[in-house]
């Protein structure tokens, strides 16, 4: 019986992380062995394309299509001919506020990721791969390195893996710690030892990426999915989702719920099920005001959206994004203006400083929000903020997607919580401040 929740099938909080022996006992590395020995890169690509897998890093771009842009040099017999390095990079720089799904995968089942990387590297014929990991993920970093060492020892990595003639070197690279490194081209710049500035596209990394060579950057969860897609096939994979999208997804909920956490669930699970069933509903005394469905850079949704399925296009139509699928809850005792200000300040701080709307526009927005929150706002500030949303908020206005992402919670907060903004300005104070203090006091917190 193949698990319906493949990504976490080996994960058990009561056990140690899965080691190579255990992993192999559970069919580990069979897919990798089979692929490099029996499947052509084109076959693998076809399976991934057929599976309908969409990138789990937040943008939801179809993985198979992303890979198909990598130039493949083949000879008359269809064998791959190398004309230089190609790179596969695992984006493990998980820094989206409220997101902690990749950490779970890496800390609990590192071999699943490594096998996914072998399969992905084989598909695009990359000979060098990197795991670009968030600086703070010391444990994951250590466990991954141990797993990689074990693989090298058994010939699953390095030269001539599985005696197939295929070579793959895999390195763990700890980031110096910038949110912008989650942007794939900024990640590449950083990996090259340069300032972590995103790059203009085109050219895309598939053509000119790391050190000017064809490069694929995928999220940890995306790569973990590859392991199971190749192992069990596209048709099987398609049966996993219960909505429009295929497969499963690690969903998370944080905020004032009874049971915050991270769960693997079928794509298309409703938001209500996620919050009420898995997260246990709101804590006593708190009501749901809204939520960011996919991390800090997604638009707020509110109660009316609770029955929507967590699918890329469904959430997109509702005016937000599935993002990383890890939800942040806004309750009725937390100031939405304060929360938005906190988010915009985060993004202003994490701007790489390259393009004007982001570098200067975000601090400006944060300053206006700070004025409003502290009771110094004026009515014209709302126009200024709306203007900033238009000015910064569209992809193409800025060099990369960071600033438009930052504008998503702001734009939607101004839409759904307009009364709160007005109350701050009219009352020249944050209406939540005393209540918040009282609530904290009653909960026994100083």
């Amino acid at each position, binding site marked *: 019986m193949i698990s319906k929740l493949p990504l976490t099938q080996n994960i058990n909080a009561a056990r140690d992380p899965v080691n190579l022996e255990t992993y192999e006992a559970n069919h580990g590395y069979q897919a990798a062995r089979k692929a490099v020995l029996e499947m052509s890169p084109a076959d693998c690509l076809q399976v991934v394309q057929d599976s309908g897998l969409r990138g789990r890093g937040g943008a939801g771009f179809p993985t198979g299509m992303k890979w198909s842009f990598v130039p493949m040099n083949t000879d008359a017999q269809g064998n791959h001919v190398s004309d230089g390095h190609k790179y596969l990079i695992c984006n493990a720089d998980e820094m989206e506020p409220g997101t902690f799904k990749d950490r779970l995968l890496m800390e609990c089942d590192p071999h699943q990721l490594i096998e996914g990387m072998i399969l992905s590297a084989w598909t695009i014929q990359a000979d060098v791969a990197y795991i670009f990991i968030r600086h703070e993920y010391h444990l994951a970093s250590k466990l991954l390195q141990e797993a990689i060492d074990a693989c090298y020892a058994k010939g699953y990595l390095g030269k001539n893996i599985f005696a197939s003639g295929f070579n793959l070197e895999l390195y763990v690279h700890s980031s110096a710690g910038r949110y912008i490194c989650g942007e794939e081209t900024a990640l590449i710049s950083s990996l090259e030892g340069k300032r972590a500035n995103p790059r203009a596209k085109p050219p895309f990394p598939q053509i000119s990426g790391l050190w000017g060579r064809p490069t694929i950057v995928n999220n940890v969860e995306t790569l973990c999915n590859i392991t199971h897609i190749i192992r069990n096939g596209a048709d099987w994979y398609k049966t996993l989702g219960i909505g429009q999208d295929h497969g499963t997804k690690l969903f998370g909920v944080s905020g004032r719920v009874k049971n915050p956490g991270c769960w693997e669930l079928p794509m298309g699970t409703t938001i209500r099920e996620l919050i009420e069933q898995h997260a246990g509903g709101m804590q006593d005394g708190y009501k749901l005001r809204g939520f960011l469905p996919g991390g800090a850079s997604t638009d707020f949704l509110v109660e009316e959206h609770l029955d929507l399925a967590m699918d890329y296009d469904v959430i997109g139509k509702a005016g937000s994004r599935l993002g990383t699928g890890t939800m942040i809850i806004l309750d009725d005792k937390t100031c939405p203006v304060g929360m938005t200000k906190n988010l915009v300040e985060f993004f202003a701080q994490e701007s790489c400083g390259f393009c004007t709307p982001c*570098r200067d526009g975000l*601090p400006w927005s944060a300053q206006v929000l700070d*004025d409003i929150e502290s009771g110094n706002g004026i009515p014209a500030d709302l126009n*200024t903020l709306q203007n900033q949303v238009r000015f910064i908020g569209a992809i193409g206005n800025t060099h990369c997607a960071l600033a438009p992402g930052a504008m998503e919670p702001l734009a939607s907060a101004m839409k759904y919580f307009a009364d709160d903004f007005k109350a701050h300005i009219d009352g020249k104070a944050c209406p939540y401040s005393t209540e918040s203090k009282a609530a904290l006091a009653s909960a026994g917190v100083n």
Partner: protein
Amino acid sequence: MPTIYIDDKSYDVPEGDNVLEACLSAGIDLPYFCWHPEMGSIGACRQCALVQFRDADDEHGRVVMGCMTPVSEGARFSMNGMKASEFRKNIVESLMLNHPHDCPVCAEGGECHLQDMTVMVGHRNRRYRGKKNTHNNQYLGPLINHEMNRCISCYRCTRFYNDYAGGTDLSAQGAHDHVYFGRQQDGNLESEFAGNLVEVCPTGVFTDKPLVNDYTRKWDLQSAPSICTGCALGCNTSPGERYGKLKRIHNRFNNEVNGYFLCDRGRYGGAYVNDENRAKFAGLRADDGRYNAIESQLATDTLAGWCVNTDRIAAIGSPRASIETNYLLRRVVGGKNFNSGIGDHEASLVKQISSIMQIDSVNTPSLRQVESADAVLVLGEDVTNTAPRLALSLRQSVRNLAKKMASDMRIAHWQDEAVRVLAQDCLSPLYIISMAESRLDDVAKRSITMSATDIARFGFAIAAELDSSLDSIAGFEPAHTQLIKSIASDLSSANRPLIVSGTGCQDQAVIKAAAAINRALNNSNGMLSYCLNEANTLGASLMQDGSEASLKELCERASKGQIDTLLIAENDLFRRAPHQQIETLFNNINNLVVLDCIDTETLAQSALALPSSSFAESEGTLVSSEARAQRFYPVYQPAEQRQSSWRWLTQLGQSIGLESFEKFTEFDNVTASCADDFAVLAGIVEASLHGDYRYRGMKIARQTHRNSGRTAMRANISVHEPQQAIDNDTPLSYSMEGVNGKQSSALTPFVWAPGWNSNQSVHKFQAETGGALKGGTPGKRLFESSSASSAESDRDKIPVVEIPGPFEAQQGHWRLLPLYRIFGSDELSARSPAINELTAAAFVEISVDDAETLELLDGDGVLLSLPDTKVCFEVIINPSIANGCLGYSVGLPGAPWIAPRSSVTIKKNHAWSNTNRDNKPAKIVIEPGVSNV
């Protein structure tokens, strides 16, 4: 030519351009910051936004950056629509959040691109209520002032400094709205091209420090088209003056020569003209050895009296004086009594070079053509120190491989970051064979060092490798044999190979070896470039018919008592020959007459000293090392009795009744007469528009139309405004009246256009943005290679040479290698205070092994035994110097002239300490009524 639509109007635009370039070329004022015509696009500032529509029916469109969007047939854009113009307004408002309101005290004010763009987009009201960010400023050396608070983070500075010019000590630091552009710590900016930051920075972060310290707004500067005298490349400059002082030098765009950039020697090297010690009055030496100031007429009459007997006079010209000055001097004394003043050994080298350059098949490249080379060999020349701007061009040439790779991937050449990312460290081959390490080594495929003799030998071996009909040269170590093969292979497979050499080694064989390689390549696209020392070295050398006397001959004649009067124009002979030889020469002369604009040891020995005007106060023609004749114009009127050397000489000629001197009162007539007399110089009359050029009857204004205080400038002296000076020799006027902008762009005193007060306005003077100037490129190349002539048919014209044997170190003797320095080796610029601050003391460099043998450490002193003197130098241990050789600094203050290729004995000077240097150049002061030594 694709057609694009902007606000529903159609424009035919150049294929391959981006939309911003296309707009500017079409005369549309699309604001921008980070894009630079020479450095391409990165899309950082987002200022040049337009709205692009999918098709004619699309009503919404999306914001795109003009600089990042290629032109394509039928593309539709809105520039003036609400969405686009509001977006651009927002950008400026964002940039201004942290920008201080210090325009009134900012050196950029009045020529600030940020001011221009702010006005252009119409941003007026500030909505931001927060605090501004503030930064600490750094000390960046004597050339550049740093004021980080003004920064708008366009990244132009680091892109120029690091990406374009190869600097390493300026960087973007920090992140978000705290990005800081500076060094890791205070200190001199290391790049020789740092001064360009002044013009590259769109606001007042990097400003010209000497200007800041003695400030004048651009609109109050009086300017004229000029030519840099810092080296032989002939970069075009635009010096600005106020109150009789040269305030600053800006780049003057010349598509084929310097483009948008100058070196720091050129930008900061002109301030010597403000030296208080420059003579203002003619001085006649009294019996007690002091000078008495005399009237100009008396000076001319005295001189005329000394020149009556034309058999007993002689004259020495100068490679730093104009063609016209040299010509008139030669006319006064006749060819057989004339010496070019280049110095005998150097003159023979230059003669060799000029004869090679005149071979039909030899193509001497302009700097722009240098940038097109796809394989380069530098043979013996330390380009950064002898022809600095050429080093910047060579640095661009190595990027041709990157551009080709990009073109193969259909990435536009202006996609600057994408091209760099794609190519990473892939560079077109540049090989450097030199005497010591060079500042281009970081982009060289290989660079090796050896003695000058071995460089020549190495060069001939490359030629032999390329041309099997030549005798091969044996005796190289295996690694060198392999290198010779690689160089030959890269050069022969290149489309546009370039060989760079010059007089830097002071070695005939090196010059000939470079020519031999060029011939052996037998490639009609091949290029051969020689570096020369001074602004008119080539011009002075070309003005010869074989009758001229060598310096040595003149010395002999003087020693026989055959010369009564010796005229020297703008030349310090102590920089050309051994001290003793010149002392003796002067002792044998009754009447030594020296015209000069600087105070030199030679001037100090004169019986009659005539104050001539500098490049900034006179006109003249210079022939650059690519044989481009170019005209410089007076920026302002010379003070007191100073006048151009050519005027002094015209007056002299008229006084003694020389033929045709009566018409030499007009400058163009001097040029024309010289062109008539020397066929090789025939082109100099086309170097520039003539003095009678007018635009619709108008002269060209040297002053801006806003020259605010001109009527008040002298009010402290007299409230009567003096009449504006008349300039009969040039099409320029000493006035704010006249044309600026519509005349031929070759005659542009300063760049300005309505709404464009900064130097970014240069595109208004270009036929196409980034391309040639309207009305053509200034200057006239005297020789052009002829495609009809192949290298094969010119074979006989290439000098034959005996290939030198390998250099062998002699026990106890060291072979001298001349080492040049960008700051200090050039006589004129070294006198500018800012350059002087960067000038090292005279030094010698020795290999690690030899230093060990002599028990020398860095900073020790050594005594060099020269034929007539012993001199002490500071020692620098340099691992790149060949054993048995001793590099010595050429021309630095405190060092005597040293005979080329000589061998010396040296010993450690135990008495040496770093403090006993005397860097001070010779000084004389001549003031009316005051005498001085």
